């Protein structure tokens, strides 16, 4: 087994292109990662026989897969922006955002107006009752005083 690659050694890619006589018109073509094995094919070589490809290091991505990759990349970026951007946001550290939900009663019902009014009326009823009792007690006291005299 031996490795076949586009270049025989590291840092030799540029020279190779320079040395090669390009028959096509593009002279400015440059390899971005000259010494990076963009395609590596592992073959099993036996004399007098075809080579068996036993490992191929390149990934051929379909359009969909490329889209998925980019979507994930965008999502990750956005998530990162939000999370790491909000890490020092005073709003998210404030009581307004961080406090416990609800009104402390354990259930999340915010329509309390009628309950408040109901309890206010009950309170009113008690007030009146106390007033009535006081009046009666006062009347009784007056009667007692009158009888004592």
């Amino acid at each position: 087994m031996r490795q076949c690659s586009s270049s025989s050694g590291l840092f030799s890619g540029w020279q190779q292109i320079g040395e090669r006589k390009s028959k096509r018109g593009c002279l400015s073509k440059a390899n971005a990662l000259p010494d990076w094995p963009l395609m590596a094919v592992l073959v099993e070589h036996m004399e007098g026989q075809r080579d068996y490809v036993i490992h191929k290091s390149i990934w051929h991505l379909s359009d969909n897969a490329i889209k998925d990759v980019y979507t994930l990349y965008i999502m990750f970026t956005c998530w990162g922006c939000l999370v790491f951007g909000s890490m020092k946001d005073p709003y998210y550290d404030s009581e307004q955002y961080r406090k416990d939900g609800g009104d402390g009663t354990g259930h999340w019902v915010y329509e309390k107006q009628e309950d408040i009014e109901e309890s206010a009326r009950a309170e009113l009823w008690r007030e009146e009752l106390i007033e009535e009792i006081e009046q009666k007690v006062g009347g009784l006291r007056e009667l007692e005083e009158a009888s004592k005299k």
Partner: protein
Amino acid sequence: MAATSLLPKSLSPFLTNPPSFPATHFIKVSFLNPVNHLYCSKRPNIHTLVVHAKKKNPWLDPFDDGDDPDMEYGSLFADGKQEEDPRPPDNPNNPYGFLKFPKGFTVEIASLALKVRGDVRRCCCVVSGGVYENLLFFPVIQLLKDRYPGVLIDVVASPRGKQTYELNKNVRWADAYDPDDHFPEPAEYTDMVGLLKSRYYDMVLSTKLAGLGHGVFLFMTTARDRVSYVYPNVNAAGAGLFLSETFVPDSMNLSDGGYNMYHQMSDWLGRPFRSVPRQPILPLKVSISRKLKEVVEGKYRNAGAEKGKYVVIHGIKSDSKASMQSKGDTDSLLPIHVWAEIANGLRGIKPVFVIPHEKEREDVQEIVGEDASIVFITTPGQLAALINDSVGVIATNTAAIQLANAREKPSIALFCSEEKGKLFVPSAQEKNSVVVSSKTGKLIDIDIQAVKNALPIFDVSFALV
């Protein structure tokens, strides 16, 4: 004797004469006699004499022949008004812990006993109209509370009318839902039906003139007694099917009845029942909470008035919805220049002008003067608290007059006609109220001099204070 009572059906045909049957300790003698049912239907003369002349709706219950005249309510049948506390006595020996009712108490038929006794534990009042109509409904609520001790009374009223129940201690819940709305939002409608149904009312009273639609609405609350006013014309067709008791008002507008606008309903509610005598209807009373008094005290202090040294002036002409007029008297507001003239006659007492909307403030300041005491009040609760701390009230036919009567304050009521005055302030003399009515039938033509002549009633009470 015990053996005969176990086999009633086979024996009863021989016992044609029930009084000869020595069954004094049995409660229901007539129950043993199957012929009796025929007897009661054959004896309508008793019914027509005893029961009020109102015709029963035969569609509601075709098998209802009315009360059994031979029925004897013995010692097992609790007499008189209902008990305040509906809980049966605890049974501490009950092995089931939470089932704390006594032996023989069957939850399943507990409501049947309520029906037989005519008890009402939970009652809902659907009150149509605004503040004035709701305020005049207070005596009915008091009547309910007196007639059915321990009853829980809830109210469904329009958002404005609901504010009135700040002044009523007898009400438990007050829900805002406008019964006068002809096309309620479906979501609100169903929500309210579900809400009322889930509260399991024994009785629903409604002062909205019911047609088929409102009858169905009340029917869907599944209350035992559905009591409502119905239209006095053909629009009432079909409403009787869904209602157990209906009242026909004198006119299309219930508020035309004035102070006693709900007299049919209160007559029916206070009717004598077995050993319970007729329940008298008490005069209108309102109660004001301490909190409310404090808030309003701050308000009139800011306006430059002092407690017990001012007269409330209510009924300034405005297109505001908070003017608290009655639906039965639309001509009941006076423009500010008339009020200014009347207020000129006051000596030593400060007039406090109640405005229903902030936009009126400028007009009042322009005509009366910059130093006029102006209080912005839209709710009946605050108005009542303001009246409570005043010497008296000068008002047109607004809720202020009724509140003054309820708090026993002297008042001068300006009416567009004498008949309206009699309707809305009956027995004015007793209530320390002077009714001044316009001669022409229009409020604007009211005799200001007559109003000024009536002003000394405040001086009397002022001296007393």
